[in-house]
């Protein structure tokens, strides 16, 4: 495995190094803009997006009953994905009047409908989990120390 790792790291460094050379071919001001764009992405994730998610997660745990956590957490994640995908099209910032075949949908409507469908699935999921037959291992998994009966009395 050590040999494979050394080879992988070697190949990776060579390919990445070639990329760095290609970036280096640009004028300094362009290199700066590329580097800044990449770093802003990291900072936005690490210092804004991730802490925000953690804060919302903690708040959600206090406010929302435990049985709803699972579908709500998944729906929240889906919403984040939909919002990210909607950012470049929502306000059609790239639209040009000479070409109406780009950005030719009603994106706000599309986003709201898709979000509505995602959140409509939350109560459906909750109901399905309650109504569908539950396997025994899932019952056991849901149990905590309080659910376990005490040792039967010795005769």
């Amino acid at each position, binding site marked *: *495995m050590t040999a*494979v*790792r*050394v*080879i*992988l*790291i070697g*190949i*990776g460094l*060579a*390919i*990445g190094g*070639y*990329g*760095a050379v*290609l970036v280096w071919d*640009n004028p300094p001001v*362009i290199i700066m*803009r*590329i580097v800044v*764009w*990449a770093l802003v*992405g*990291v900072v936005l994730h*690490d210092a804004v997006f*991730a802490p925000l*998610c*953690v804060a919302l*997660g903690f708040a959600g*745990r206090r406010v929302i009953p*435990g049985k709803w*956590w*699972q579908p709500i*957490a*998944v729906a929240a*994640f*889906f919403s984040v*994905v*939909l919002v*990210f*995908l*909607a950012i*470049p*099209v929502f306000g059609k*910032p*790239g639209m040009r009047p*000479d*070409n109406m*075949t*780009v*950005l030719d*949908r009603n*994106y706000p*409507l*599309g986003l709201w*409908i*898709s979000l509505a469908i*995602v959140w409509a699935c939350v109560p459906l999921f909750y109901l399905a989990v309650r109504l569908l037959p539950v396997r025994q291992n899932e019952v056991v*998994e*849901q149990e905590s120390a309080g659910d376990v009966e005490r040792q039967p009395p010795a005769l």
Partner: protein
Amino acid sequence: MTTTTLRGTAVTARVGLALGIAVAVCFMTGLISHFIQHPQPWFFWPTRPVWLYRVTQGLHVISGIAAIPLIIVKLWSVWPKLFERPLIGGLVRQIERLSILVLVGSMLFQLSTGLLNIAQWYAFKFFFTTSHYAMSYVAAGAVIVHIGVKLPVIRRALGEPVDDTPALGPSRRTVLRGTWLAVALATVVTAGQTIPLLRKVSVLAPRSGQGPQGVPVNRSAIAAGVLRSARSPDYRLTVTNGATIRAFTVAELAAMPQATHRLPIACVEGWSADAEWTGVVLADVVAAVGASRDSDLRMISLEPPGPYSRTVLPARHARDSRTLIALKLNGQTLDLDHGYPCRLIAPTRPGVLQTKWLTRIEVVP
């Protein structure tokens, strides 16, 4: 149960594996597109199946978009490591942190610029194609280094069961299932611009697939500045082979034997559409100036000089019987935005190289 147990290498390695596959597909299809546009002597690009570029470039954008939910979960699963002690540590630790910074920075760069580019939103002040190309090597290299560094951890994590037994709320299994569903969701809401079946449900796709004569447009006649020249009565299609020169009026082209082929137009931005093109077989036109079947052709547009106003068509595509100088699209005279009076349409070529408003074809010696 705490969040820290929900995170963990069992999730990271599995989502990472999927992300690695998405990145590999994205990188390879991106390289294919690059080398079609910047041909190298060793690069071979076939003319069949005619939808080949439609598939590779569609996959490029689809896999890039699929990587977005994957990278969100991947980063979520490792984010607490950012605060692990020692925060600074020794040289090895600093190199490791730097390599992760390069990895995350280049990946976010690629995904964000790609996503903005398909919506034609140029919020960044650098040239998209060259920087996206250069950073693709940085990202791919960083991913491979990362796999090399983490290989023992990955192998161990993939061998372990995912299960944890939460008292309440989401389990690791939920995280994984949710991730795969999110990839499906991201694909469904955007891939309709490539996969006609999904057109109606792809509510966030930059293209609905509509356009003049049923085909979307990337560069309009207004943007290309050809409104007057394309409709001029003096228009001629000039074909040259050294000193041999022939000029065709639109009527003369229309009087030549016509062929009709169903060919896709597939844009570098990932959208594509099938259409019925009618026109003169290109090989017949260049035969009129006695060109060899092994010659590349330079296709020149009425559009004033710019990055794509002249392109070189490789001999393999030039002699293909389905490569047309199209005069009609879906049974109607070519719309001005689709390249009236005539345009190139060849199998397996990126849309940007299907030169519109053709004015001159030169046999490359």
